């Protein structure tokens, strides 16, 4: 046995040091590689979504000279709002288009020409006239919403090298659009409709407002149910419940619930809330209840962990000056545990925001154009909207899908930012 401080021990240690340091360096390198790989995947994913999604935030408009002659519109001069509602705006637009391209004569070509403009343009025109009735009888140059196919060409998304039969945008349309572009009669604008309208069969008219509202109402219901119930359950289990078989059983079951696939909660919601309690289908109310069932375990588990992490000395201090158990919990334990509880709850809510499977089960997958006005109106939510759009064959919906994902992720980032902000705020107090 050699003496630990003898010179040959020192040289032994020194020679082994080199190996140890090399191992350490290798380990650091692996770690860095792992981080970089993860980061790369994330970057590729995000970049793909952003590149695909950005065009959805712009919408092309085409300037058409339209004759708002009352006769042609089929209304009397000085028509009332109701009469204008029924006026033939589609015809006016078609006439305007024919006048711009007098060389288009065959029926087939005309129909292709009309398809340049979105069918939503009729309603835009109607709204314009309702707003400014004095336009009736005038001939005016009006910017009309382009159809998504024309839009995709104007956005440069159409590969003209491709054989004509392999693409949706045909050569004649390309010719017309090129002419319009040369005349300065096309314009790219911010796509307001994406944020102000509900779903539509036409990509250029589809928006996320209905889904956003649906998500908002659903999450409201989820939060109002899951947060208080979850936190109170955690407080009770941690601070008041006796430790016995029953509470052990409850604890195990809560942990198991957290691992139950979310679609099972959807089935439960369908069976219990819709079929048994006869709550409305496709409604944020049921969706929120189902999602709160799903997030409850998360909130309870994270809240319990946060409460457990409160140093016992704080509890002792409070009890030691004669605080009751309730006062101890609400004056001292909960404020200290709050950042953890909030973080857990927000993670749970973020999960709920991104969840689609259980909502499909309770019918929130319906095609909904109207913005829901409350928790019992039929609606859909952002992730389901993304799912629906991703499923649509039209090219225009592809960019909507990515754009909606961007919005969804924006909200998730926002929620996390709020969690961090709240945590900071609570920590300084």
């Amino acid at each position, binding site marked *: 046995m050699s003496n630990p401080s003898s010179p040959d021990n020192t040289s032994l240690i020194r020679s082994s040091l080199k190996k140890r340091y090399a191992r350490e360096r290798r380990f650091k390198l692996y770690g860095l590689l792992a981080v970089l790989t993860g980061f790369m995947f994330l970057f590729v994913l995000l970049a793909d979504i952003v590149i695909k999604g950005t065009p959805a935030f712009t919408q092309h408009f085409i300037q058409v000279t339209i004759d708002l002659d009352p006769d042609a519109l089929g209304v009397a001069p000085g028509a009332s709002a109701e009469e204008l509602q029924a006026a033939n705006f589609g015809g006016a637009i078609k006439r305007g288009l024919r006048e711009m391209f007098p060389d288009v004569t065959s029926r087939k070509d005309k129909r292709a020409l009309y398809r340049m403009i979105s069918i939503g343009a009729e309603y835009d025109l109607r709204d314009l006239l309702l707003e400014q009735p004095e336009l009736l009888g005038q001939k005016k140059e009006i910017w009309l919403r382009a159809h998504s196919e024309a839009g995709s060409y104007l956005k440069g998304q159409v590969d003209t090298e491709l054989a004509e039969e392999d693409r949706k945008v045909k050569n004649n349309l390309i010719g017309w659009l090129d002419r319009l572009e040369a005349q300065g009669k096309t314009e790219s604008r911010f796509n307001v409709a994406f944020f102000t309208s509900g779903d539509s069969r036409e990509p250029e008219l589809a928006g996320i407002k209905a889904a956003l509202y649906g998500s908002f109402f659903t999450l409201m219901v989820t939060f109002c149910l899951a947060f208080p119930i979850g936190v109170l359950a955690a407080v009770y289990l941690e601070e008041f419940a006796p430790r016995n078989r029953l509470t052990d059983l409850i604890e195990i079951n809560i942990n198991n619930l957290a691992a139950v696939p979310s679609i099972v909660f959807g089935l439960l919601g369908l069976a219990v809330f819709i079929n048994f309690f006869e709550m409305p289908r496709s409604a944020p109310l049921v969706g929120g209840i189902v999602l709160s069932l799903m997030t409850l375990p998360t909130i309870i588990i994270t809240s319990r962990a946060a409460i457990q992490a409160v140093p016992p000395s704080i509890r002792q*201090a409070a009890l*030691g*000056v*004669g*605080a*009751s158990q309730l006062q101890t919990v609400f*004056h001292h334990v909960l*404020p*200290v545990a709050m950042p953890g509880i909030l973080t857990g709850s927000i993670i749970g809510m973020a999960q709920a925001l991104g969840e689609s499977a259980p909502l499909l089960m309770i019918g929130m997958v319906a095609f909904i154009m109207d913005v829901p006005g409350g928790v019992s109106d039929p609606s859909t939510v952002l992730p389901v909207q993304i799912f629906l759009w991703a499923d649509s064959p039209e090219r225009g919906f592809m960019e909507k899908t990515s754009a909606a994902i961007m919005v969804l992720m924006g909200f998730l980032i926002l929620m996390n930012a709020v969690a961090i902000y709240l945590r900071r705020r609570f920590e300084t107090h």
Partner: protein
Amino acid sequence: MSTVASMGNFSSKGTADKADKPQQALDINHAADDHETIGTPWVEDAKMSARNVNVFYGDKQAIMSVSLDIGRNEVVAMIGPSGCGKSTFLRTLNRMNDIIPGCRVEGNITLDNEDIYQSQQDTVLLRARVGMVFQKPNPFPKSIYENVAYGPKIHGLAHSNAEMDEIVEKSLRRAGLFNEVKDQLDKPGTGLSGGQQQRLCIARAIAVSPEVILMDEPCSALDPIATARIEELIDELKEKYTIAIVTHSMQQAARVSQRTAYFHLGKLIEVGDTKEIFTNPQHHLTENYITGRFG
């Protein structure tokens, strides 16, 4: 009140079963060996008294049949080697052991002749009457002011903000902390130094004016000046209050206490007048300890 009469007052509730027992030899049926406490553990006018207290942490017995009185307006010092159960015994006096999972207390403890372990005892009231300064400083993660004001606030001791300010200032002054923190009362108490935190905890404990104050090594983190201030405070407090103090400093025990109890491995070895214990210890363990040959 004679000793015998005062002993007769101890109602035997719960696990306590020895109301009447011979005066000298305290019945120690739980102790592994038949140790008898040397000296007289009881006093004539007891504020608190413990009889045959056993404390278990799970299966492990930490306190073995300890009987000890704490007299009215008296300072009792508890000394003994680390791990001998001083803190454990101190905690039984305001039932702080209740919140330790697996901790079980047997025996009979009274405050003003009322059993504090009886089922109708209100622990909130008990802890308001029997305050505690913990071994490790444990300020609330709140402002200095709120730390001190918390007790008076929940008990409704102050009727106006001005009155509360007064209580806070007075408590901080008595704990010898006011001058250091008077400009930063709204700063978090956890931002103070260890010794300052301990004095803050002392201020917090005395702010509710408890009848009995239990101090678990209150000066272990304090410099000599702050220690002197706390000892002064103890002297001052004993005019009105009853104090039990755990300390590792023989000098401190000698300076502040009237009676001293020496604990060893969960047993109360010897108890008596402080002067007696330090000048003429009876038990060899006590002697070894106070002469520094042990612990």
